[in-house]
C-alpha cells in the first residue's frame, strides 16, 4: 500500500552523559533563567518612567532595555537587532554548524525540558516505550496525567513570562493572585500555553523537519571548514558486534550498539551521513564516546569535525581548523558594521528632536503690508523625563517674526513640552522683506536651562515660485 501521509514515529531519546550533554544543560539553565527572570529585574529611571529593566510598553508606547529607551520612530534599532541576529546566526553556523539548533533554539530547549520531565515521571527510554505500548492501567494513567500536568504548568509559566515583558511584572503577578487579569493578557496566556504545550510536548522534531525554514537553508552556510557532527566511516566500517577480547584487526570500530540512534532527539542515524534533520546537539557524540571508552578504543568515532580536517587526517597530516575564511570574514565585517551603526545611533541618541512640516495649503500667504508668511507644523520630541521649555528661532531670513498659534499666549521663546512626550505647534513665519526666490531656512530649537539643541532645514516659499 502506498502511504501518502507519513505517521509521526514517537521518539524516546535515551538518557546520556558527557561533555555535550553538560553543555546542553548549561545552555538550558542560562536561556530559561534569562527568559523567566529578566522581567523581575528593576532599573531606576526616575519618577516619570517605569522601573522595569526590560519592558515593552505598548500603550506608552516605549521600549526599555536597561539604560536604553526607544520611541516608536526609533524602531530601526529593532531592525538592526534583527539584522545582527540573522548575520550572527550565519556567522556562528559557518564556523560551528547548527549550534543554534542544537543548544539555543527555544524549540530545542523546551523539548529537552519536556523530555526531561517525561524521564523523571515515566523513566528512561525503554520504560517510556513500554508504558506507551502497555494497555491502559491506573499506573499508566497516573504517570501520563502527571507528565501532562507538569508540561502544562511549564507551558503556563512560559506564557506568563512572555506577558510580563509587556507589563509591570510584580503588578501583573499580584493581579494574577487576585484573579484580576485583563482579557487580552488572558488570551495571550491561553494561546501561548497551548502553543508551548503543543510544540514541546507533541510536535517536537516535526517542527525542525517540516516547519523550520532554517533547517532547510543551513547548508548554504556550510563549507568544508565548518564544524559538523560526523561519523568517521573510514574508522568505523565495517561495523559489527564485538566481544571482549576479540581482535580489532580487519574490522571497524563501530560495534553497532545503536546507542547513537537511541539518544538522538531527532530519531535519525548519524552514521547515514549529514542529514537535514540533524540539529547538531552532540548527544550521539557523548553516547559513542562512552561506548568507545568501554571497549577501549579511542574516542571520536562520532565527533565534531570539519570535512577538510577529516580528509587531512586520513592522508596522515593534521591540518588545523581554519576559522579565518572569506565567508567568516565578510559575515564578521557585516556584524561589525551594523553593530557600529547601532552603537552610534544609541550613543548619539538625542534627548531632543525637532521636526518641521511646511503647510501644504496655502504654501504662502501675502499679508496686507506685502509681507510673505509661511506656515509650519513643528513637532518637538522631549525624550527626557522632565518638563522642558524651548526657544525657537529661524536662521536664513531677514526681518523675520515667528508667531505661535496655540491656546493661551504662547511665544516662540517659550514652547513647553511635558516630560517624555511630543509637543505639536503651528508656527507662522513672516518675512517683512520677502526674499526674491524660495529660500532654505533653518529652524533652531534650544532647550532653556539645558544643553540640548536641534535644528531642522525647511523651505520658505515666496510669491515668485507660485507658477
Amino acid at each position, binding site marked *: *500500500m*502506498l*502511504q*501518502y*501521509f*507519513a*505517521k*509521526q514515529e514517537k521518539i524516546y531519546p535515551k538518557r546520556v552523559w558527557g561533555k555535550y550533554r553538560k553543555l546542553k544543560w548549561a545552555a538550558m539553565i542560562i536561556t530559561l533563567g534569562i527568559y523567566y527572570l529578566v522581567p523581575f529585574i528593576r532599573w531606576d529611571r526616575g519618577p516619570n518612567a517605569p522601573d522595569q529593566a526590560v519592558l515593552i510598553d505598548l500603550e506608552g508606547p516605549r521600549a526599555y532595555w536597561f539604560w536604553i529607551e526607544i520611541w516608536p520612530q526609533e524602531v530601526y534599532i529593532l531592525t538592526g537587532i534583527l539584522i545582527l541576529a540573522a548575520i550572527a546566526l550565519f556567522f556562528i553556523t559557518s564556523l560551528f554548524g547548527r549550534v543554534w539548533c542544537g543548544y539555543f533554539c527555544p524549540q530545542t530547549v523546551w523539548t529537552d525540558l519536556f523530555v526531561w520531565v517525561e524521564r523523571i515521571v515515566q523513566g528512561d527510554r525503554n520504560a517510556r516505550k513500554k508504558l506507551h505500548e502497555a494497555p491502559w492501567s491506573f499506573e499508566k494513567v497516573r504517570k501520563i496525567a502527571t507528565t501532562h500536568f507538569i508540561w502544562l504548568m511549564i507551558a503556563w509559566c512560559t506564557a506568563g513570562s512572555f506577558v510580563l515583558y509587556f507589563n509591570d511584572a510584580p503588578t501583573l503577578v499580584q493581579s494574577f493572585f487576585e484573579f484580576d487579569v485583563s482579557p487580552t493578557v488572558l488570551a495571550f496566556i491561553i494561546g501561548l500555553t497551548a502553543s508551548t504545550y503543543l510544540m514541546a510536548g507533541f*510536535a517536537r522534531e*516535526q517542527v525542525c*523537519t*517540516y516547519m523550520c525554514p532554517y533547517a532547510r537553508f543551513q547548508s548554504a552556510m556550510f563549507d568544508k571548514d565548518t564544524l559538523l557532527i560526523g561519523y568517521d566511516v573510514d574508522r568505523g566500517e565495517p561495523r559489527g558486534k564485538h566481544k571482549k577480547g576479540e581482535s580489532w584487526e580487519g574490522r571497524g570500530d563501530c560495534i553497532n550498539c545503536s546507542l547513537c540512534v537511541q539518544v538522538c532527539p531527532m530519531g535519525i542515524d548519524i552514521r547515514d551521513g549529514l542529514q537535514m534533520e540533524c540539529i547538531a546537539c552532540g548527544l550521539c557524540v557523548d553516547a559513542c564516546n562512552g561506548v568507545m571508552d568501554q571497549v577501549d578504543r579511542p574516542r571520536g568515532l562520532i565527533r565534531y569535525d570539519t570535512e577538510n580536517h577529516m580528509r587531512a587526517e586520513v592522508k596522515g597530516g593534521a591540518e588545523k581548523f581554519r576559522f579565518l575564511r572569506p565567508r567568516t570574514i565578510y559575515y564578521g565585517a557585516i556584524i561589525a558594521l551594523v553593530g557600529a551603526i547601532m552603537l552610534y545611533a544609541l550613543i548619539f541618541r538625542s534627548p531632543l528632536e525637532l521636526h518641521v512640516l511646511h*503647510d*501644504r*495649503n*496655502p504654501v504662502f*500667504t*501675502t*499679508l*496686507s*503690508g*506685502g509681507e510673505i*508668511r509661511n*506656515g509650519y507644523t513643528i513637532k518637538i520630541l522631549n525624550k527626557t523625563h522632565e518638563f522642558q521649555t524651548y526657544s525657537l528661532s529661524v536662521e536664513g531670513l531677514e526681518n523675520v517674526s515667528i*508667531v505661535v*498659534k*496655540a*491656546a*493661551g499666549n504662547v511665544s516662540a521663546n517659550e514652547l513647553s513640552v511635558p516630560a517624555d512626550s511630543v509637543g505639536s505647534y*503651528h508656527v*507662522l513665519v513672516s518675512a517683512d522683506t520677502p526674499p526674491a526666490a524660495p529660500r532654505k531656512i533653518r529652524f533652531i530649537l534650544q532647550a532653556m536651562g539645558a544643553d540640548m539643541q536641534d535644528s531642522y532645514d525647511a523651505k520658505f516659499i515666496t510669491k515668485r515660485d507660485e507658477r
Partner: protein
Amino acid sequence: MMSDDHKNKDVDEVSGVETTGHSWDGLKELNNPLPRWWVWVFVVSIIWSIWYFVVYPAWPVPGGATEGTSGYTQYKELAESQQEIIERQAAYLERFEDASLGDVMADPELYAFAMAGGKSAFKDNCATCHGTGGEGGNGYPNLNDDDWLWGGKLTDIHQTLQYGIRADSYETRLSQMPAFGQEKLLEREDIDTVVEYVMSLSNGEAANAESRGFQIFQQNCASCHGADAKGDTEFGAPNLTDAIWLYGDRQEEIFRTVYYSRNGMMPAWKGRLDENTIKALSVYIHQLGGGLPDELKPDEDLRNPATPESPEYEKTQDIEIGEEAIEPQPEAPIAKEIEQNLEQHE
C-alpha cells in the same frame, strides 16, 4: 533492489524514493509523504470554515447574503465605533458648550478640540469656496491673511459664520457697492482715473490731493472706503491701500469692480450647523493666521455676541429678504460726507 517484498512497490533508483506508480510517457511521480498532522490541520481548517459560514454572513442569496448567527455586519461595527467616538467626544462637548470663546482660547484641551472639530467642519462646509487650506481664490477671500472685509476678531468671525454675508438671514452682513459704470454714476474716463488712483495707493504711493483721481475718490468712494481708502469693516468695505485684491490686482479687474460692482455672498450657517460647530469653526478660522486680537477675557461670555434673544427676533427670523432690501439706502449721509470732503480739500 527493486520491489521484492511488496508487489506494487516501485522505487526510483536515483532518489531512492518510492513512486506512486503513475507514469506519463515514462515519467514517474515520486511519493514523498506529507506528515499526517498536516492533514489534521487541513481538516480542522475545513471545520473552522463551516463554523465561519454559520456564524458570519457568508452565502450570497438574492437580495443580500445570509445573516449569520452572530448578526455581525460591518455597518454595525462602523456604528459601534462611531458611537464610541461620540461618547468620547461627549465629555469634551459638554465643557465646550459651556465655555466662552475666551475660555476656549485659553484652555489647551478645549483649544485642541475646537481646532480638530473646526478643521473637519471646514473641509466639509467651507472648502468648496475658500479652499481646503482656507487659501481662497478669485472672489473668495483668503482666510489666512490679515485682511478682513467684515472684521477679523473672533467675535466678528463668529458673527459672519452665523449670519453670513448678503445671505438669507435677518442678521446678515449687508452692504452694496454701486455699479458706477452700469448705473451711469461715473463716466468711463472717470472710472479709469479712479482705478489708476486706487492702484497707486495700493502700490504705496502717497495720495496727491491735487489729482483728479483723488477728487473722484473722495466724492464717490470715501463714504464707505474712507477718506484714506483704508476701508471699513462696518460696511465690509475693503482696504484699498493694502497688497490684497479679492478680485485680482490687474487694472481691468479693478475697473470691472468699479463699473459693475461686486456682490460676494456667503451663506448663513446658523441653523445649518449647530452652535458648537460654528464656535469651533470660528476658532479654527481665526487661528489660520490672520485672526486679529479680541482682547477676550477667559471668563467673559461671548458665546452669542450678536444674537437678539427677544421673542420678536424669533418671528422675524423667517421673513424673506428680497432684492430691494439689499439696495443701498443712505443717500443723504453720503452726500453730506462728499460735501465735507470737498470743503476739506478746497
